[in-house]
């Protein structure tokens, strides 16, 4: 999950592990994040300077500068590494040094909003009108909008056009077609299909299209619809079409398998496009992830939202609101999409974007019917996400049948 730039994703993982290591070494997990003094607060800077915090790369700076010009502000940009962001935000929340504009991964927005650290964007006259519906769901907490996403992403089925042509296979639309195609494409050292079934939220994120499209629901995962989805995932592995290593693969690993020609099809997101385009001799395309009977795919909504934290300076919060509004304008969305490889959230802008950029067309289609992970359970989503990947792991390792795996995960006290 947490799709972001590939180079950042690696740093994220590293950072997450390092935080853990340091914290556990001291056996005092919390004091580290809770009580150290925060970085530059907003109160000390002058009234027209907005502090921005995100986990993007420096390539994002021109976008901030452009919007700063539009709203008549100066910006101080602070890029934090990946999952270090939440730890930093919590620390800043407790020391009241939150930035003026804060970027958050969309499933984290409700959790942070619930803590009271964010101000509703409705206060600044902003709304999610004209955007793909899942954006509003993901960023709304108790009826108020707390974040806006200029761009989003999701996952689709990439396929190696050469391998498919050689095997005489057309891109699959249904589960039966996918299973047959994967089987046919599996030869020698090449698996027909690859996805990430890892024991993190990333594994959950990748399994969700099968789960949701088939009518699975995170409130109770012990249902027939969910069992069918998990049975399908397992069948791909039992057929020998998907490597048993998929339970230990992150999405970046899946991408490497695909680039190396060891997988003919894979589930992955548009943030892999730079790496895929850079791979020599690789020709690929993508289609929305197949569903049981070929109906529209329900995939999870990805991407990051911009929020306005509560600070002491209400005039500055207003300016920050204007700034977030600027980032979210249709024209800016297209610029941001160009830099990040993601999809504009404005429906009209997305359609125009798909026409000019055929590589992301399948993602534009998917995003329109995407579902927000936190849409139903809000801040309780992490618990459900843990249950889902636990069930997937139990089933794929053969520790339980798909039905039992879901039952165990649902009832298990996490």
């Amino acid at each position: 999950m947490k799709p972001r730039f590939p180079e950042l994703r690696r740093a994220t993982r590293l950072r997450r592990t390092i935080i853990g290591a340091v914290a556990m070494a001291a056996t005092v997990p919390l004091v580290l994040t809770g009580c150290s003094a925060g970085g530059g607060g907003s109160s000390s800077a002058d009234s027209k300077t907005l502090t921005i915090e995100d986990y993007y790369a420096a390539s994002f700076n021109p976008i901030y500068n452009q919007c700063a010009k539009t709203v008549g502000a100066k910006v101080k940009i602070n890029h934090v590494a990946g999952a270090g962001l939440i730890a930093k935000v919590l620390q800043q929340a407790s020391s009241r040094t939150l930035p003026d504009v804060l970027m958050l991964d969309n499933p984290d927005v409700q959790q942070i909003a619930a803590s009271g650290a964010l101000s509703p964007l409705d206060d600044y006259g902003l709304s999610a009108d004209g955007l793909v519906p899942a954006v509003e769901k993901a960023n709304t907490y108790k009826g108020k909008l707390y974040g806006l996403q200029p761009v989003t992403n999701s996952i689709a089925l990439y396929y190696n056009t050469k391998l498919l042509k050689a095997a005489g296979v057309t891109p699959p639309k249904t589960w039966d077609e996918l299973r047959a195609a994967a089987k046919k494409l599996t030869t020698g050292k090449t698996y027909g299909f690859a996805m990430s079934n890892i024991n993190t939220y990333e594994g959950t994120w990748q399994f969700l299209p099968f789960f949701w499209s088939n009518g699975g629901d995170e409130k109770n995962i012990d249902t027939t619809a969910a069992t069918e989805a998990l049975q399908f995932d397992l069948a791909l592995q039992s057929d020998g079409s998907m490597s048993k290593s998929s339970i230990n693969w992150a999405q970046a690993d899946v991408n490497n398998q695909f680039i190396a020609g060891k997988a003919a099809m894979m589930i992955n997101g548009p943030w892999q496009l730079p790496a895929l385009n850079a791979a020599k001799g690789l020709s690929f395309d993508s289609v929305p992830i197949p569903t049981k009977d070929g109906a529209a795919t329900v995939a999870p909504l990805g991407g990051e939202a911009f929020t306005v934290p509560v600070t002491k300076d209400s005039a500055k919060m207003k300016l920050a609101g204007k700034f977030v509004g600027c980032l979210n304008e249709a024209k800016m969305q297209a610029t941001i999409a160009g830099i990040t490889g993601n999809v504009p959230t404005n429906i009209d802008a997305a359609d125009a974007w798909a026409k000019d950029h055929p590589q992301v067309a399948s993602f534009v289609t998917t995003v329109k019917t995407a579902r927000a992970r936190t849409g139903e359970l809000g801040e309780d989503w992490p618990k459900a996400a843990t249950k889902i990947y636990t069930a997937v792991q139990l089933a794929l390792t053969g520790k339980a049948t798909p039905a039992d795996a879901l039952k165990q995960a649902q009832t298990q006290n996490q």
Partner: protein
Amino acid sequence: MLSGATRWLFVTPAAIFVAVFFGYPVVKNVIMSFQDYTTKTFFTGEAPWVGFANYVSIFTSSVFTTSLINTGLFTIGSIVMQFVIGLGLALFFKRNFPLSAFLRGLLLLPWLLPLIASSAVWKWLLDQDSGALNQFLGIFGVPAVPWLVSPNLALIAVIGVNIWLGIPFNTTILYSGLQAVPTELYEAASLDGATGWKAFWHITWPSIRSVVSVVIILGVVYTLKVVDLILGLTGGGPANSTQTLATNAYHQSFINFQFGIGAAVSNVLIVVSFVFAMIYLAISRKAVDE
């Protein structure tokens, strides 16, 4: 003789240091384990008191039982093998031979590498389809072994990597212990006909016994809290088969943001470590008394 107040003044800096850097965090962690401490707490400062609810929830969770068993297996497996191999190497390097100092230096390599880097490399080496280890075994006709993928093998693979990691520590400390054994003892013993195994049991082992206990106790404490290695290799998976108390605590606090529950798990870990630390103190005190 110093007056009472002056004596206390000398103790004060150390006392403050211990209180700030050890006392406060431990007390805070204990308090936190009785609170519903979540992301909200950071902003509002409110952490409702929930009594033993966090402990009840961890003790009734099946993942906790798995973690407890895995922690035991991981620690015992790692320590036994690290010690045996470490002692063997230390004895081997005791005989000086050409390049022995250089090789001994090389042996420290696992210790010097950042853990994140070595776990990432091991993850590649142990990959089922394209890992170097399986490629090598394949030469002898061994079918691909699912090292990190099978729930039955993953813990063994993780222990294996941790053994590799702990060998330098064991070898170094035991080697320095061996250096302290006077060579005259061996000379005298050889005159009486005690060489080889006999010399080891009657001279070497009794002479390094205190070093051995230090190595083992410190090893236990270091191994109990291993997080980064497991996160790098398996993330506690597949299907929680390599989840330990340390990774469980990390997961609760930093993935689920259930800081209260995470604190409760790490308190269990602290108690276990504390027991071993006490044993260490008792042994080292005994050694001083002798």
